């Protein structure tokens, strides 16, 4: 049953990765800023929730505090940093470097305040397991799947069924036209940064609940999520989520036929070849 265990592990990890990819996709497709500091916001959410929990808040309230804090930080980053740089005529490369700098500031501040130790939430219910078709899943893993699917469906509903979502898609599609038709792209950017940042807090809490909390833990997951966003087709929420699942499942199942040293290299090698044939991604025409 090794294959089933690996498949389920891949799907769980894919759901966590999918939430990061969807949140990054919302931001990147709308603002076109390569928001590297998203990795730090992911980490920040975990630490805020951890602190709230240690101050006696129940689990759901701690998660909510983290979500609100990340949303606020995301909006502030857009308003105080990216928007100012954009108004002053900074290129996207300059904004990327500013984002990298901000990421380093947030992550190193987290390390200074909380130490670089791998922290644990210490919630015994998270580690309890259930047998599903011969494979073992922890409560945290099942929550990750549940929140992953809900986040994907929620993002789809937001983008296609709400006024703000429609404005976001219009801004993403044609920023110039959005400006002259008074869709107020700058306000949309702030709203999308807040929503994307709030969303990334969910995996920012669930992944450390399973694997421990580290100040630099967001970097590798964001890098993989970025590949899912690009290979899925920039702007496609479904593309980002599905490709995140595919990458995670491939990484896990590849262990059946090759040692772990080769797993990541070969998985991403497949994507490099894929991009040669579909450079605009899977879910775009």
């Amino acid at each position, binding site marked *: 049953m090794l294959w089933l265990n690996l498949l389920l592990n891949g799907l769980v990890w894919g759901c966590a990765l999918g939430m990061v990819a969807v949140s990054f996709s919302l931001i990147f497709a709308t603002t076109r800023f390569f928001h590297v500091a998203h990795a730090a916001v992911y980490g920040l959410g975990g630490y805020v929730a951890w602190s709230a929990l240690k101050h006696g808040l129940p689990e759901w309230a701690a998660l909510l505090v983290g979500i609100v804090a990340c949303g606020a930080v995301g909006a502030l980053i857009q308003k105080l940093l990216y928007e100012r740089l954009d108004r002053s005529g900074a290129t996207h490369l300059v904004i990327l470097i500013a984002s990298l700098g901000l990421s380093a500031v947030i992550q190193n501040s987290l390390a200074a305040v909380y130490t670089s130790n791998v922290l644990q939430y210490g919630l015994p219910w998270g*580690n309890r397991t259930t047998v599903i078709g011969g494979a073992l899943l922890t409560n945290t893993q099942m929550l990750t799947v549940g929140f992953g699917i809900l986040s994907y469906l929620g993002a789809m509903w937001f983008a296609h069924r709400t006024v703000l979502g429609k404005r976001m898609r219009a801004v993403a599609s044609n920023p110039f036209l959005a400006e002259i038709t008074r869709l107020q792209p700058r306000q949309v950017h702030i709203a999308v940064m807040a929503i994307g940042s709030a969303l990334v807090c969910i995996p920012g809490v669930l992944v450390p609940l399973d694997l421990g909390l580290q100040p630099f833990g967001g970097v590798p997951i964001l890098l993989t999520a970025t590949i899912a966003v690009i290979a899925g087709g920039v702007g496609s929420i479904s593309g980002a989520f599905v490709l995140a699942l595919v990458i995670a499942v491939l990484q896990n199942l590849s262990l059946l036929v090759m040692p772990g040293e080769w797993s990541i290299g070969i998985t991403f090698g497949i994507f490099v070849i894929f991009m040669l044939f579909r450079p605009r991604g899977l879910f775009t025409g």
Partner: protein
Amino acid sequence: MLRISTIALALGLALPASAQTIRLGAVLPLTGPAAVIGMQEQRGIQFAVDEVNAKGGVAGHKIEVLFEDNQAKPDQSVLLFNKLVDLQKVPAVFTGYSGPSLAMAPLAGRKKTLLVNGGAQADALDKASPYLINTIPVLAGELDVLATYLVADAGKKTAAILFENNAAGIAGRDDFLGSFEKAGGKVLAQEPVPFGDTNYRPALLKLAATSPDVVFVVITTGTPQLADQVRQIDAKFTVVGSTFFSDPELIANPNAEGFTHTQVLINAPEGMAAAFKTKYGTEFDFFPKQYYNAATVVMICVEKLLKDGKPVTGENLLAALKEIKTFKGLTTTVFNTNTAATQINMNRINGKQDNLLKVIPPK
């Protein structure tokens, strides 16, 4: 004089705080994923130095350690080593982690600067440079003890290996593989995990599928998460490892029940451990103890040179170390070669305690 000071400061050259102060260097990971250990190593050195300085220093000379952060990166370590040796003229540099230590080792030989490793255990460190001394045994010695115990005493005949994919992890894997098969056991499978990654589940599942008696683990961080994940997959094997399992958080984890490991012996008096905890708010665990010991070894060498009226240079420190040979620090540290020999114990974690199984005296 003012002009000279100004020029020196402008060039980034710090003037000595006092003519009496002896400066040493340390290149350790103080930020990044490895900082959890690097900061403990830093505290161990500083604790030993503060203790000596509070008593008037070494033969009347205060000791100061200049710490540099390498984030456990070999390339960064080389730059920082050059900075400390060329600009600050330090005669000795403390180091940790195998990759950075191996990167600095050739420079230590070329610049005749004593490089003092108190925590890394890759075998290549043993003969990396005549100027690199290891105040902790390299992993080969420890894993030889572990493999012999597992096969001869515990009757474990098959093993799998989970290793961190870096210099220390690969060396550990190779050492265990060689020692276990030499002792009469068979290694069925091996899987790497990236440094800093705490998601061990896929690798553990793959190793468990080969049904080994034991899984040998060589990772430097995330051992409590490993214990949780071993329990979650309902593993039938025993987890075995080296001194890295002496993490207090792992020992306190109920899921680490039965974990068996070697332990390089190092003990601290109760009062000292309490003073350390009061000062830094963390336990005086394995790494600060090792670096306290390493700092003590260096300061004993400095004291000998000062008493003999010799300048404190890297070359003279090395000569003094070879002459003194046996150091009574937190543990008896004997330098028959550049790598110290110390007592190694076999321990098993039971009931949130690290219990002694067997004592193996130094060869």
